[in-house]
């Protein structure tokens, strides 16, 4: 299909769809006037019913926990797909330590960068832990905190170089974090069933409102998500960096023709 035909098709589709889109936008409630009844009810009931202050965490880990379980496995599937596609070509061997593509220069880092990373790295990790732990109290949770923790590990790479980063980060640990986090979340759904409760019913003591230990089972699920996101995002970065290591074959024929 030539680009011109494609543009024409796109314009045609836009012409057909635009009246419908305009109709829908005109039918939406005016911006800022009201919110959906479901969200309104959650805001009204949940602080008392679940003893949590953060409604977003309450929805993600309790009220709509089943949806988050599905999303957790989407995350797992996307990361597994990435790892399989990258490793499938490269093979499993020699993934234990850092290697370098021959001929690629190693640029030395300035001392200022190393110092800044050594200061900022632990602080970032600490902040990530804070965000993870305060999921039910303040804006935070496993998803956001997990990404902050993963970026904390990236500061190790920035400061210590690739070899130092690979000494600190082991691929198998990341696999365990990623899979273990998803497993923990799934167990949070299944274990309440052993006691006769419903799937993912909040059977743990709910704790006190505005306290770190509030929300019961949500804290465990939140921990599972944090582990999975930290492991998953670090794993993604590791696998992309591994693309730059020396291939088992001497040279890639496909790259010459580029």
């Amino acid at each position, binding site marked *: 299909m030539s*680009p011109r035909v*494609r*543009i024409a*098709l*796109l314009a045609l589709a*836009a012409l057909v769809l635009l009246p419908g*889109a305009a109709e829908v*936008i005109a039918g939406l409630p*005016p*911006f*800022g*006037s*009201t*919110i*959906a009844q*479901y*969200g*309104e009810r*959650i*805001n009204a009931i949940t*602080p*008392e019913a679940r003893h949590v*202050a*953060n*409604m*977003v965490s*309450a*929805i*993600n880990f309790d009220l*709509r926990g089943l*949806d*988050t379980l599905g*999303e957790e496995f989407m995350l797992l599937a*996307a*990361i597994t*797909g*990435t790892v399989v*596609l990258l490793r*499938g*070509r490269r*093979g499993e061997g020699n993934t234990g330590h850092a290697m370098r593509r021959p001929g690629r220069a190693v640029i030395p880092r300035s001392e200022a960068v190393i110092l800044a990373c050594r200061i900022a790295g632990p602080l970032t990790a600490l902040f990530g832990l804070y965000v993870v732990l305060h999921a039910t*109290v*303040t*804006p935070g*949770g496993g*998803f*956001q905190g997990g*990404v902050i923790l993963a970026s904390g590990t990236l500061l190790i790479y920035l400061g210590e170089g690739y070899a130092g980063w690979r000494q600190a980060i082991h691929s198998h640990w990341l696999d365990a974090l990623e899979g273990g986090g998803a497993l923990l979340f799934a167990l949070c759904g299944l274990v309440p069933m052993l006691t006769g409760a419903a799937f993912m019913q909040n059977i743990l003591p709910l704790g006190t409102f*505005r306290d770190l230990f509030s929300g019961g089972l949500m804290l465990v699920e939140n921990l599972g998500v944090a582990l999975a*996101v930290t492991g*998953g*995002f670090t794993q*993604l970065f590791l696998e992309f960096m591994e*693309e730059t290591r020396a291939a088992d074959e001497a040279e890639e*024929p*496909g*790259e*010459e*023709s*580029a």
Partner: protein
Amino acid sequence: MSVLPYAVAAWLFGIGLYGIATSRNFIHLVGCLGVCQSATYVLLLGLGYRWGGIAPIFYDHPPGTPAVDPVMQALVLTDIVVGATLTALLLVLTIQAHKRGGSLDPEKLRPMRAGGTSGRGQGASRVSDREQSTS
């Protein structure tokens, strides 16, 4: 002005779709998909907003204070996380397409041949691919 956020969402989606349709580079295409996706963030947050509402976190404000819709915020949160991992997956597919076809242009994407899919025989099949393309 009350339709402005929805119009912004529609415009973002449309311009991302235009970029996808006219893209000549897979990385550019993945970026355009990200623009399309950000339209969903604007739409969801716009739907859940209320003038004067606080964030749906009742720590500093007592429960019962008018707040914005927490469902939309939870949706956007999961949207962002899944979007980030899917972007990584698409970029890996881009790497694979470049390794097999030697090009990032979607126009030059050719069907994969049988025999090039197994891990072992890849090197050999790739060489034969190159011979075919040069002849």
